[in-house]
């Protein structure tokens, strides 16, 4: 078996080298080399976009894997010329791209958004000062003690401009009082998230894409899902205060942690904002 593979590789290599030697200068397989290079570059760009497009969304990836399974089965059935499953699987594989567009329309839109925007990095990164950290912690603890729901997202490298654009812009200095005021029920800005960039509150009332992570409790509220959702697609950290229980949680890198005391919250914020 190994010898066969070795022989095949040697045969192919000799063939290719032979072909290349026969070609005139600047030509490969009768085609100008520059054309092949440009063609390869274009193909790479398209494939790169497609790979990023598929892997940026878990649901998309899961569908792509099941489609791949169908294509493999169709190939096997076609190769061995199976009488019944062959035509069925071939027919199915021909209709899969159309099915995918119909079923996955919202996810395709979301993936396209992520492909274009998620990697935009803020190189001029300035994290908040010690005072900002204290204000965020004080506000979160106060809101938790009063059982007022809150969603505070701290931006890092991945810009959150796309969410801020649709929210109410503030550009104000972070302070405990302002944060408490924003989340006070029945006020115009209390619904949605606050985005903090450096030492300032960028906006309030921002809406994030909800996480569809199946590993978390199905009863988890939309505020927690929103916090988890933004942590899955960006490198931000979100502090979530539950309206029902008054518990504080933080969401970072797609993980949600329940915070029991001030010291632990301080520790996580310090680690994130250093």
């Amino acid at each position, binding site marked *: 078996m190994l010898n066969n593979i070795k022989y095949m590789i040697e045969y*192919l290599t000799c*063939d*290719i080298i032979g*072909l290349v030697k026969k070609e005139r200068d600047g030509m*490969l*397989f009768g*085609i100008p080399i520059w054309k*092949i290079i440009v*063609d*390869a570059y274009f*193909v*790479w760009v398209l*494939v*790169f976009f*497609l*790979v*990023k497009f598929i*892997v940026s969304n*878990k*649901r998309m*990836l*899961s569908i792509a*894997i*099941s489609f791949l*399974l169908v294509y493999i089965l169709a190939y096997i059935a076609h190769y061995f010329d199976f009488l019944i499953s062959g035509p069925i699987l071939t027919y199915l594989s021909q209709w899969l791209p159309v099915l995918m567009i119909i079923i996955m329309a919202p996810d395709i839109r979301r993936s396209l958004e992520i492909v274009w925007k998620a990697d935009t990095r803020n190189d001029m990164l300035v994290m908040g000062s010690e005072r900002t950290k204290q204000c965020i912690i004080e506000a979160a603890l106060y809101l938790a003690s009063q059982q007022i729901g809150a969603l505070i997202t701290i931006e890092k490298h991945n810009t959150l401009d796309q969410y801020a654009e649709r929210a109410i812009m503030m550009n104000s200095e972070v302070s405990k009082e302002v944060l408490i005021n924003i989340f006070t029920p029945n006020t115009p800005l209390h619904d949605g998230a606050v985005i903090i960039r450096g030492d300032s509150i960028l906006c309030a009332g921002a809406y994030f894409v909800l996480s569809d992570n199946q590993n978390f409790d199905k009863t988890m509220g939309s505020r927690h899902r929103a916090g988890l959702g933004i942590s899955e697609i960006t490198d931000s950290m979100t502090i979530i205060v539950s309206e029902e229980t008054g518990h504080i949680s933080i969401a970072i*890198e*797609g993980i949600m942690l329940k915070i029991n005391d001030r010291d632990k919250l301080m520790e996580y914020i310090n680690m994130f904002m250093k």
Partner: protein
Amino acid sequence: MIKKILTLIFEPIRAFSNRNFAEKLSIYYSKNKWIAPVLSLLITLVILVLAYVLPNL
């Protein structure tokens, strides 16, 4: 082990989906961003070989 084999025989699609490949791949990709350009390069090379080399052999 026997249960896994039985699932694989009677419900191959379920056995395949139970492995949570999408979840694992997605986590791996989020931790290793370099995988996308490298994978694309490999796929491109395969396409180039199929398009240029094989028809000329």
